[in-house]
């Protein structure tokens, strides 16, 4: 009886321990902000998190190894979080004070900065020995990352949005190359519409228009349909120009010239590689996938200019931040600086990486992407990185406005509701959300 009691008690303790063993562990070793950059012996620890596919994660691991080789006193704990649900996890970690020292922010950057969860990077950037200083970043990209004039994040890289197109498909339909048209000043939304007519008649798909900030800028802001004013204080979407361009695009969707992919249920990459789709709107991030295409020729071209000849090119760029909870900020900055430096960006982005550099240093573009064989017009990325613009700051400051825009786009392009009515309502709702 006594033996049985002892066995039962031991079993109960094992069960109790087992039910608690899953609490609070990350994919890698536990490197919460409060405990990270502590010391295990003489070694300091820095944790950082991001998402990525298999190839990207392999690059990040190699970058971590390279950094640790140069900095043997620092151990990097890398936390990879799936992109689907990335911010859910980060938000949970921030709420509990267990976020990594350095991490990518997919959405809600301005909220995080305003609530004091992010470290001011300006003091670290002054005289940084790796060249990670304000002057070295592109002046048209950096303002998005400022909160009341202060930098709480840096762009990890940049991806100017262009159109990938199937050269063979256009050529077989007797259509002129978009880059040739652009050189003649004729590559605009009307020329695109004419092209779409011929492509659709041949049974192929011209474009899957998606419901993103980038599309808003490329397709609509180019024709003067601005969602917000320059200082993000007012919603300005309801205008004659906006009604005109939205009506034009709505008619293109109604007539089947382009397809609305608002819910993202259609996969443009697969369709493009299967030679069913003529154009894909994206940044360099498709090159790791497209670089092995051998069945047909493809290239990139600028977004078509708008109704008045204007052209706005969106630049996608992800903020990388340092947690304000980081205990050893100097060590964390050493890694952050390396990550953003010429060496770090080269490591991450060369050999068909997913973006192009966010810092402007001589020779860096040549090292990273300008000497690659594809695409032929890769200089467009370089050009529009300097001339383009980042997404709307207000959508980050007031996340509800981003959802309102998506809902309005769905109404116009999935439901074919009256454009004038929808845009008027959108302006009212977005203005209310900003108050």
């Amino acid at each position: 009886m006594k033996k049985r009691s002892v066995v039962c008690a031991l079993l109960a303790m094992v069960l109790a321990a087992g039910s608690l063993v899953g609490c609070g562990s990350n994919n890698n070793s536990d490197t919460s902000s409060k405990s990270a950059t502590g010391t295990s012996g003489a070694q300091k620890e820095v944790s950082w998190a991001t998402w990525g596919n298999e190839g990207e994660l392999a690059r990040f691991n190699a970058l971590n190894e390279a950094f640790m080789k140069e900095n043997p006193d620092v151990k990097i704990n890398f936390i990879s979080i799936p992109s689907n649900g990335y911010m859910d996890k980060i938000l949970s970690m921030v709420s509990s004070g267990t976020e990594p020292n350095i991490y990518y922010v997919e959405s809600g950057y301005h909220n995080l900065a305003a609530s004091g969860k992010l470290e001011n990077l300006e003091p670290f950037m002054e005289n940084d020995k790796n060249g990670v200083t304000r002057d070295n970043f592109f002046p048209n990209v950096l303002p998005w990352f400022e909160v009341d004039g202060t930098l709480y994040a840096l762009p990890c890289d940049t991806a100017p949005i262009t159109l990938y197109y199937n050269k063979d498909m256009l050529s077989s339909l007797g259509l002129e190359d978009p880059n040739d048209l652009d050189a003649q000043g004729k590559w605009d939304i009307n020329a695109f519409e004419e092209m779409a007519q011929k492509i659709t008649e041949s049974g192929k798909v011209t474009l899957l228009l998606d419901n993103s900030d980038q599309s808003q800028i490329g397709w609509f802001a180019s024709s003067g349909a601005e969602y917000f004013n320059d200082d993000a204080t007012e919603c300005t979407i309801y205008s004659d120009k906006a009604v005109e361009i939205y009506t034009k695009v709505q008619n293109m969707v109604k007539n089947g010239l382009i397809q609305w992919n608002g819910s993202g249920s259609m996969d443009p990459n697969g369709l493009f590689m299967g030679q069913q789709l003529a154009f894909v709107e994206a940044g360099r991030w498709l090159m790791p996938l497209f670089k092995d295409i051998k069945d047909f020729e493809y290239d990139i071209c600028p977004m078509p200019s708008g109704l008045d000849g204007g052209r706005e090119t969106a630049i996608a760029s992800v903020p990388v931040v340092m947690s304000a909870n980081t205990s050893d900020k100097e060590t964390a900055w050493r890694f952050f600086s390396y990550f953003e430096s010429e060496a770090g960006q080269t490591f991450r982005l060369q050999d068909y990486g997913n973006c192009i550099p966010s810092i402007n240093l001589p020779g860096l573009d040549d090292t990273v992407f300008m000497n690659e064989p594809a695409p032929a017009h890769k200089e467009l990325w370089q050009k529009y990185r300097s001339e383009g613009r980042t997404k709307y700051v207000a959508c980050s400051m007031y996340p509800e406005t981003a959802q309102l825009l998506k809902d309005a786009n769905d109404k116009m392009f999935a439901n074919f509701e009256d454009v004038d009515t929808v845009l008027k309502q959108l302006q009212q709702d977005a203005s209310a959300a900003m108050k």
Partner: protein
Amino acid sequence: MKGNKTESLYGYLFITPQIVGLTIFSIIPIISVFYLSFCQWDAVSDPIFVGVQNYIEEIKDPNFSKAALNTLLYSLIYIPGNIIIALLLAVAIKNIKGKTAYRLCYFLPAVTGSVAMSMIWLWILEPNAGIMNYFLSIFGIEKLNLLGNMATVIPTIGCIAVWYNVGYNVVIYIAGLEGIPGVYYEAAMIDGANPVTRFFKITLPMMSPTIFFTTIMTTIASFKVFDQVFVMTNGGPSKASYMYVLHIYDYGFKQFKMGQSSTAAVIFFVLLLILTIIQNIMSKRWVNYET
């Protein structure tokens, strides 16, 4: 007496891990959600108590009514589909040769991951390159965009969900059918009852407790729909498939309105509780417990 006390002590010791886990992972979060439903909180700053303001805003919010209506429409397909089809399938395969194989085939979808299943259906239904439209084109039928059409998106997701989950109820119903004593059927056959009469007069009444259980579980599951909608349509097109749990997730994690998201969750809990109580009360009229 001492023996009883000792045995009770061991009993409590064994259930302690479960109670600790339940408290940490269920009870405390539930209490927190109730508290947060009365606060304004963006998940990163401190919560600010605002009383019933969130509840008033939530009731007035058009997204709330849209999500509730869509979930109701989805449930009108999912619940009858799962109950009726599962029952008919169970009756059909109960005495058939190869019953085990049939049971396996019907149950297989239920054990695959819902996300993987949704991705597969996304490709099957892809309007430009999916196999469904390929087969339709063989018969000269124009391609369909079932998930991109506001009128068809909820029926489509509902039918996929029925296909995915019907096997679970089939297995339960087969177990229930096997528990019905054969003497009732023998007596009915002697009295000249045909199969349809036997089904309605014997099978259904005897199966009523099992059907009641699956109705409750299926109702709760239908209102909790999230995975398929999140993967396949993300609530679109134009919020045509915007379900209630997606609404809770959207407000909490996309718009950083954790307070209002918690309010929506509490309202959801209350609605489901009322529905379950109504079902329990109504069960007295049609559920027959054999004594």
